[in-house]
C-alpha cells in the first residue's frame, strides 16, 4: 500500500520563506475572526515573524492594518499567544503607524498579567511609548524594577534604558530603584521547587542590567561613578554575574580614560581582577590596562609590575580550552605588537604553538602577531612558515597576513629580499580573488617606493607576473608602475618588450594602459634608439581597432614629437608624458563637484585645474607614509575610544559590523579622508571670503587644533592659515546649549608678549548669530612683518547670550541679552606652521649635503616619556619622521629621531637629527638641524618646544 501525505507546516525548517501576501491575508482573516483560535494565531504570527526577521518589510498601510488586527488578539487570555503578540508588536513598531494603541493593554498585563507575559509586556513598552506618554508608565515600571522576579526586573531595567533617549526625565527618577537592583540577588521563583536540582537558582543577570542603567543615569557625574565602583569592588562578592563584572571593568576604563590621574588608585583592584575566576573579567581587565598604557601620556602611570602581570595573564589565556578566550587574549597581544612588540616577546612560544590552532582566526592572528614580534634574526624562518600556511586559508586571512608582511617590510627594509620573494610567490602561485591579489600588489608597491634598492628585482618579477594575470585592474596598475619606474632602471628595453607584448595580446583596457606606459620610455635619457623604437611601436599601435587605444597612441606620438623641439611646448609635452606633479585628490573631487553643481553657463567656462593643489612625488610619498604611521597609532588607541557600556539589547539593527582585523590598511580610512575633505573645505571657504582675497594664495594651513574640552558649553577648534604677508586664525565655534543663541560671537586674541609682537591685528570677522548645535567660523586676521613669525596668543570668546523662545526658536524681542566671555586655550604659531613634511629615501646623505647647520640643546624636567617628546616634536615641526624613528624604544633610555621637511614658503629643505636621553632628572634633547635656508634652520631648531 502506498500513501502520499502532505503537511502544510512540515517544511518549516526549509529555507523558503512563506509568501508575503499569503501570510498577510491569513493574518487579516484569522485575527479578525470571532472567536479567535489561539493556536492558529500563534502559528501565523510565528510565520509572520520569520518573514520579518528575514528582512521582509510591509508598506506602512499594510503594516498598520497588521498591527491593528494583531492588537485585537489582546481579547484572548492565552499566555503563549500573548507572548507572540508582544514579539510581533516589537517587530511591527518600526513599520506601523499608531502603535500607541496597544499601550493600555500592555500596561494592564504589566499590572495583572501572569509572570510569563509580564516581562514580554514590559519589554514592548519601549516600542510604543513616546515622549508624551512615557510618564504614564512611570509607576508601573518603577515597581517592576524592584520586583523580586529576576525576569520582570531585568525587563524593566532594559526597558528603562531603552526609554532613556525618549523620556530622560521619567527614567531619571528610577535611580534609587536601579541602584537597589544591583545589590539585590534575585532568585527565580522555581528555585525552591521541584526543578531546583536542574536549574540554577539565578543567573543574576539583573545585576548586569541594573548596572548598565545606573551607569547611563550617572555617567556625567564622576563622583557618583567613583562611589559606585568603590562600593561594588570593596565588597567583592556583591556582583555575582559575570557580565556585570565585565561591565564594572568597563566602567573603570571609562573613568581612567576621562581622568588618567585616577589610574593609580585603581591599580590594586585591577591586580585583583587579573586573576578573577571569570576569564572574561581577566580579558577585559587586560584590555583596559594595555589600551590605557598604549597612550604615551598614560604609560608612566601604569606600574611595571601591573603591566607584567597583565602580559602573563594574557599569556596564560593563550592556552585555555575556551576558544573565545584564546582569541580575545591573542587579539589584545596583537594590538600591543603593533607598537611595542618587544613587550610581548615572552609570549612567543605560546604564539608559535597557536600557529597550528584548529581555529583559523586564531592561527592567523598568531602569525600576524609573530610577524610583529619577530626580530631580524627569525624573519626568514617565519616567512617560510607562512609560505606553507597561506595557501590553505581563505582570502580574508590571506589579506591579513599579506598586510602584516607589508608592515614588516617597512620595519625591516634590509629584509626585503625574502619578503619580496614571499610576496611574488603568493602573487603568482596562490589562488585568490581580486581583493587579495590587490593587497599583494599594494604591499609590493610599498616596497618599491620605500625600499629603492628592491626596485629592479621587483619590476622584473612583475613583468613575469603580467604574462599571466587575470585581473584587468591589477594589470593596469602594474603597467603604470612599469612605465613610471622602468625608464630609470638599468635596462629599460627589457620592460618595453614586456609592455609591448601586452599590446599584442590583451584587451583594449590593458592596451590603452600599455600605450601610456610605453610612451614614457621615449623620454629615457640619452637613448635615441629606444626612442625611435618606441615611436615605431606607437605608429603600429595607431592602427589599433579600438579608438581609445588609437587616440592615446596618436597623442603620445604628437607629444613625443614636441619634446624634441626646444621651446615651451616641449616642457608641457614632457610634463604630460611623465608628470612630476599629482593632484590633491580630495581637493580635486571637491572642486569638480562644486563645478558641476554651480553650472551657470552650461559648462562653457572650462574647469580651472590650476586652482587644485598639486604635489610632487616626494610629497605624495610623505603624506602616504605619514598616513600609514598614523594608522598604526589610531589602531593602538582604538580600545580607549570604545563606548564603555554598549547595551543596545534586543535591537536587531544594532549589530555593528566589525572586521576581524582592524589593522588592515585600505588606503586612507574614512576618518582621514573626511579630515582632508574638511581641510579642503575650510581652505575653500576661507578663499571665498571677500576680505581675504587681497592676501594672495594660501601657503599653508595647520591641522585642526581643539581649543576646549569636547564637553564644553562652547566647543571651539582652531586652524592657522599662513599667507605671504598675513596670518589668519580660524575659530570653529559650536554652541552646545539648547535654548540660548549667541550674538556677535568673536574671539579676542591677545599676544602673549604684546610689546614686541610682530603681528598686527587687521580685522575680525565675527559670527552674527550662533544658534544651538550649530557650528560657524569666526576669523581673526593679522599682518606679519617678516616671513616667519612665531608667537603665542591668549584667546577669549566674547558674545551676547540671547534666550530663545521655545515655540518660535527666536530670541525674545524684549530681551537684550547679556555680554559674556569664555576663555579658550591659547594658540601658538611656531616654526612648524611654515613647514610641510617631505619624504627622502636616504636621510643620512641628504642631511650631510644641506649647507646650514644649527644646534640646540633642551632640558625637559617634567616627568614625561620619550614617546611623548617624540609625538610633540613631530607635531610641532610638521616634519615627517623617517626610518621608523617615530617610535621610542621600550628597552632603552635614549633615542634618535630623524625628521625631514621643507619650507612651505619657498620649498627649501630641512632635516633634523634629534638625539634624546632620559635620566632620572628629565630628558635632554640635542637637536641638530641642517637646512638650505639659514633662518628657517635656526627658527626650527630653536623653537622646537
Amino acid at each position, binding site marked *: 500500500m502506498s500513501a502520499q501525505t502532505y503537511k502544510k507546516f512540515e517544511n518549516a525548517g526549509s529555507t523558503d520563506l512563506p509568501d508575503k501576501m499569503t501570510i498577510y491575508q491569513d493574518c487579516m482573516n484569522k485575527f*479578525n475572526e*470571532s*472567536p479567535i483560535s489561539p493556536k492558529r494565531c500563534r502559528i501565523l504570527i510565528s510565520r509572520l515573524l520569520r518573514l520579518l526577521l528575514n528582512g521582509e518589510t510591509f508598506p506602512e498601510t499594510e503594516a498598520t492594518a497588521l498591527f*491593528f488586527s494583531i*492588537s*485585537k488578539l*489582546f*481579547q484572548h*487570555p492565552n499566555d503563549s499567544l500573548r507572548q507572540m503578540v508582544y514579539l510581533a508588536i516589537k517587530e511591527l513598531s518600526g513599520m506601523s503607524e*499608531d502603535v*500607541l*494603541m*496597544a*499601550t*493600555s*493593554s*500592555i500596561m*494592564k498585563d504589566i499590572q495583572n498579567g501572569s509572570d510569563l507575559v509580564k516581562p514580554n509586556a514590559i519589554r514592548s513598552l519601549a516600542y510604543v511609548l513616546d515622549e508624551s*506618554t512615557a510618564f*504614564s508608565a512611570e509607576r508601573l515600571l518603577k515597581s517592576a524594577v524592584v520586583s523580586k522576579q529576576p525576569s520582570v526586573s531585568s525587563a524593566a531595567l532594559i526597558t528603562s534604558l531603552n526609554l532613556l533617549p525618549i523620556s530622560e526625565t521619567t527614567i531619571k527618577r528610577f535611580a534609587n530603584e536601579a541602584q537597589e537592583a544591583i545589590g539585590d540577588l534575585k532568585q527565580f521563583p522555581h528555585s525552591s521547587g521541584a526543578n531546583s536540582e536542574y536549574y540554577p537558582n539565578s543567573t543574576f543577570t539583573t545585576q548586569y542590567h541594573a548596572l548598565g542603567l545606573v551607569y547611563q543615569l550617572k555617567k556625567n557625574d564622576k563622583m557618583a561613578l567613583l562611589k559606585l565602583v568603590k562600593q561594588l569592588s570593596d565588597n567583592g562578592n556583591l556582583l555575582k554575574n559575570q557580565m556585570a563584572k565585565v561591565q564594572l571593568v568597563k566602567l573603570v576604563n571609562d573613568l581612567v580614560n576621562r581622568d588618567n590621574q585616577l589610574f593609580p588608585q585603581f591599580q590594586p583592584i585591577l591586580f585583583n581582577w587579573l586573576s578573577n575566576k571569570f576569564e572574561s573579567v581577566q580579558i577585559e581587565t587586560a584590555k583596559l590596562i594595555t589600551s590605557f598604557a598604549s597612550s604615551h601620556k598614560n604609560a608612566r602611570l601604569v606600574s611595571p609590575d601591573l603591566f607584567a602581570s597583565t602580559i602573563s595573564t594574557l599569556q596564560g589565556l593563550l592556552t585555555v580550552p575556551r576558544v573565545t578566550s584564546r582569541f580575545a587574549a591573542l587579539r589584545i597581544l596583537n594590538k600591543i605588537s603593533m607598537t611595542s612588540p618587544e613587550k610581548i616577546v615572552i609570549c612567543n612560544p605560546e604564539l608559535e604553538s597557536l600557529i597550528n590552532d584548529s581555529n583559523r582566526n586564531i592561527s592567523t592572528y598568531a602569525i600576524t602577531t609573530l610577524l610583529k614580534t619577530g626580530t631580524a634574526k627569525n624573519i626568514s624562518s617565519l616567512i617560510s612558515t607562512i609560505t606553507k600556511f597561506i595557501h590553505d586559508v581563505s582570502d580574508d586571512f590571506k589579506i591579513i597576513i599579506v598586510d602584516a608582511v607589508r608592515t614588516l617590510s617597512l620595519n625591516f627594509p634590509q629584509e626585503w629580499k625574502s619578503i619580496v620573494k614571499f610576496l611574488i610567490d603568493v602573487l603568482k602561485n596562490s589562488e585568490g580573488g581580486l581583493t587579495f591579489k590587490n593587497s599583494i600588489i599594494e604591499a609590493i608597491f610599498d616596497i618599491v617606493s620605500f625600499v629603492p634598492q628592491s626596485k629592479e628585482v621587483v619590476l622584473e618579477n612583475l613583468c613575469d607576473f603580467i604574462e599571466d594575470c587575470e585581473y584587468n585592474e591589477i594589470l593596469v596598475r602594474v603597467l603604470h608602475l612599469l612605465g613610471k619606474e622602468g625608464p630609470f632602471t638599468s635596462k629599460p628595453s627589457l620592460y618595453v618588450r614586456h609592455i609591448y607584448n601586452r599590446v599584442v595580446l590583451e584587451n583594449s583596457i590593458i592596451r590603452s594602459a600599455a600605450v601610456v606606459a610605453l610612451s614614457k620610455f621615449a623620454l629615457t635619457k640619452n637613448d635615441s634608439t629606444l626612442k625611435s623604437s618606441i615611436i615605431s611601436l606607437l605608429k603600429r599601435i595607431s592602427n589599433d581597432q579600438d579608438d581609445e587605444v588609437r587616440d592615446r597612441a596618436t597623442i603620445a606620438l604628437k607629444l613625443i614629437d614636441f619634446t624634441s623641439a626646444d621651446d615651451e611646448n616641449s616642457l608641457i609635452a614632457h610634463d604630460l608624458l611623465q608628470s612630476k606633479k599629482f593632484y590633491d585628490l580630495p581637493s580635486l573631487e571637491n572642486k569638480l563637484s562644486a563645478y558641476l553643481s554651480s553650472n551657470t553657463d552650461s559648462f562653457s567656462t572650462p574647469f580651472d585645474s590650476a586652482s587644485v593643489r598639486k604635489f610632487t612625488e616626494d610629497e605624495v610619498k610623505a603624506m602616504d607614509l605619514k598616513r600609514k604611521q598614523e594608522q598604526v597609532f589610531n589602531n593602538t588607541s582604538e580600545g580607549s575610544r570604545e563606548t564603555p557600556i554598549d547595551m543596545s539589547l534586543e535591537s536587531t539593527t544594532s549589530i555593528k559590523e566589525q572586521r576581524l582585523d582592524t589593522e588592515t590598511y585600505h588606503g586612507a580610512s574614512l576618518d582621514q579622508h573626511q579630515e582632508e575633505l574638511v581641510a579642503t573645505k575650510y581652505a575653500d571657504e576661507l578663499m571665498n571670503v571677500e576680505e581675504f582675497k587681497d592676501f594672495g594664495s594660501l601657503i599653508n594651513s595647520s591641522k585642526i587644533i581643539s581649543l576646549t574640552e569636547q564637553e564644553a558649553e562652547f566647543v571651539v577648534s582652531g586652524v592657522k592659515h599662513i599667507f605671504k604677508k598675513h596670518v589668519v586664525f580660524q575659530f570653529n565655534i559650536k554652541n552646545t546649549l539648547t535654548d540660548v543663541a549667541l550674538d556677535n560671537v568673536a574671539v579676542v586674541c591677545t599676544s602673549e608678549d604684546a610689546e614686541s609682537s610682530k603681528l598686527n591685528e587687521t580685522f575680525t570677522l565675527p559670527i552674527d548669530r550662533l544658534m544651538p548645535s550649530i557650528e560657524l567660523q569666526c576669523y581673526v586676521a593679522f599682518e606679519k612683518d617678516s616671513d616667519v613669525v612665531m608667537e603665542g596668543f591668549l584667546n577669549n570668546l566674547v558674545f551676547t547670550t540671547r534666550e530663545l523662545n521655545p515655540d518660535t526658536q527666536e530670541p525674545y524681542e524684549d530681551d537684550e541679552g547679556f555680554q559674556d566671555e569664555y576663555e579658550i586655550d591659547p594658540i601658538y604659531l611656531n616654526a612648524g606652521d611654515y613647514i610641510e613634511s617631505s619624504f627622502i629615501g636616504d636621510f643620512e646623505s641628504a642631511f650631510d649635503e644641506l649647507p646650514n647647520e644649527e644646534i640646540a640643546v633642551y632640558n625637559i624636567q617634567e616627568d614625561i616619556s620619550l614617546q611623548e617628546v617624540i609625538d610633540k616634536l613631530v607635531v610641532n615641526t610638521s616634519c615627517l619622521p623617517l626610518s621608523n624613528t617615530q617610535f621610542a624604544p621600550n628597552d632603552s633610555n635614549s633615542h634618535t629621531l630623524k625628521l625631514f621637511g621643507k619650507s612651505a614658503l619657498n620649498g627649501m629643505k630641512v632635516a633634523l637629527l634629534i638625539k634624546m636621553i632620559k635620566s632620572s632628572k628629565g630628558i635632554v634633547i640635542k637637536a641638530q638641524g641642517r637646512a638650505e635656508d639659514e633662518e628657517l634652520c635656526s627658527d626650527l631648531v630653536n623653537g622646537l618646544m
Partner: protein
Amino acid sequence: MGNYFSSMFDRLWGTNKELRILILGLDGAGKTTILYRLQIGEVVTTKPTIGFNVETLSYKNLKLNVWDLGGQTSIRPYWRCYYADTAAVIFVVDSTDKDRMATAAKELHMMLQEEELQDSALLVFANKQDQPGALSASEVSKQLNLVELKDRSWSIVASSAIKGEGISEGLDWLIDVIKEEQL
C-alpha cells in the same frame, strides 16, 4: 423554566458564540469605570486610556467580549479599526459636561454612519447622575438628537458608574434586544 430557556439559547447560539460590544464616548465619560464595574463589580481608579481595554465577561450566561476604547481626540480616529462584527455599541456621556455635549453628539452620529455598525444596537448611558447639575436622561437624549435615529434599536439609561446605578438595567435591555434581533 428559566433554566430550560437559557439552555435553549445556548443551543441556538452555539456555546462558543461571544457577543462583541464596544464602549465608546468622549474621554473622561466613565467608559473604563463602567467596563470594570461590569467585570469585577467594583469601582477602579482609572487613568486616561491610551489605546483600549478588552475584557471577556459572563453576563446572564452569555459571553460578552467588551472593548473599551480610549476617548481622547487623538485616539478617536482609531475607533473604526475595531468596528467589525460588533453586536452593540454602548455610548457613554458625561451628563455634567454640558460644554462637550455637541462634540459627543457629532462623534456619535459620525460613528453610526459607518457601514460596519448598521446592524448594531445602541445603548446610551447618561452617566454621572450622582453629580449635582447632571442633565437628565431625556435632556441628554435631546442634546444627542437620538430621536433622529431610524432603523436601529436604541435606548438611553441614566446611570452612575460610581454608585453602580442604571448599569445592569441598561445592559439587560441591550441583551434582550440582541437576542431578539439575532434570533
